[in-house]
């Protein structure tokens, strides 16, 4: 083998080794929860240490929103389909905040309740015209189809 080829071989094999190592570490890392976004099930399973500030993701349960009359305090229930968690928030809520909407809230646990300091409404990638949405809602009602959307992961 001449020197140029040998050098090229060394370089290529080094790159291959690096890519393999990096890929292995990435696969390991992807198995962990890197965004620190937890769902109510994970919170109730005790995956989040007490006092930790973390993000709670899920859907606002239908009919659970309670607004205090004299302040900006709002209480609602976040659900992921399997478990529910009471959330309390004081402040202005985003426009998209409504029942059955995915939200991402930041805060910490206070006893059994989650006290949020920030509530963000997550918008999904679906865009539907209003008339179509109404027609679909009617059809759902007629056929008694229960509306079940996946919660935010």
């Amino acid at each position, binding site marked *: 083998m001449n020197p140029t080829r040998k050098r090229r071989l060394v370089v290529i094999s080094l790159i291959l080794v690096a890519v393999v190592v990096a890929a292995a570490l990435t696969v390991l890392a992807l198995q962990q929860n890197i965004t620190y976004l937890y769902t109510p099930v994970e919170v109730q399973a005790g995956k989040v240490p007490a006092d930790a500030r973390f993000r709670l993701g899920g859907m606002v349960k239908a009919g659970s929103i309670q607004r205090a009359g004299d302040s900006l305090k709002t209480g609602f229930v976040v659900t992921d389909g399997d478990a529910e968690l009471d959330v309390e928030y004081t402040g202005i809520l985003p*426009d998209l905040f409504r029942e059955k909407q995915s939200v991402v809230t930041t805060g910490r646990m206070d006893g059994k309740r989650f006290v949020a300091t920030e509530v963000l409404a997550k918008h999904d990638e679906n865009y539907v015209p209003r008339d179509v949405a109404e027609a679909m809602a009617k059809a759902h009602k007629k056929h008694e189809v229960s509306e079940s959307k996946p919660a935010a992961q």
Partner: protein
Amino acid sequence: MNPLVLWFHKLGSPPYFYRLAGRLLPWLWGLGLISLAVGLYGGLVLAPSDYQQSDAFRIIYVHVPSAWMSLFIYAFMAVNGFIALIWRIKLSETLAMASAPIGAAFTFICLATGSIWGKPMWGTWWTWDARLTSELVLLFLYFGVMGLYQAIEDRRQASRAAAFLALVGIVNLPIVHFSVNWWNTLHQGSTVRLFGPSLIDSRMLWPLLVMAVATKFLFAASLLSRARVDLLELEAGKDWARQVALADGDAA
């Protein structure tokens, strides 16, 4: 020689490119402005309002096409930079460097419109979401390429160094694109998909696609205009450039 290869070689010569671009420019600007008008009218007036966001969703007709362009132009710049580094074609250097400011402008539009939409919808102007952060890094990368190009005196060496930086920065492109899948935090996933059905009603989709075409034309027109000027500057001492300058002088 194969006619296609011959045409490619001819395209690489600055005077030929200068004349060809000059002939193409009115068409590109015309098509770009017409499709822009059609797309904006379709998006802002004809498209029905969304069932959740009502009229606020219409910002996607500016936001999404400029986001696509911010990635497309970076890829275009990197490919041209690659050609410039390997085959040292002057035209590719010029095209790569001329596309950087346009890409930066589209990235900025994308960030600004996203921010305007985010305040009422998400409830925040800015959040350190993976998609937003990587798009911001993309803007800084454009600035870095432009800054490096301006800082080196020798024009050809400057464009080669800046092209190299653009190639290094290309690792950011997949991060921007896949960030919504890898770190599923706040930014929604892609609505329009190349493979599989799009998650948007067809009455809302067509203006978006028209806008995507319009931004492509506008980019091409703007790029060719810039590249012509840059080529004239780069080749200022050459005969053809002098002829062009003299002809323009006579006409004026």
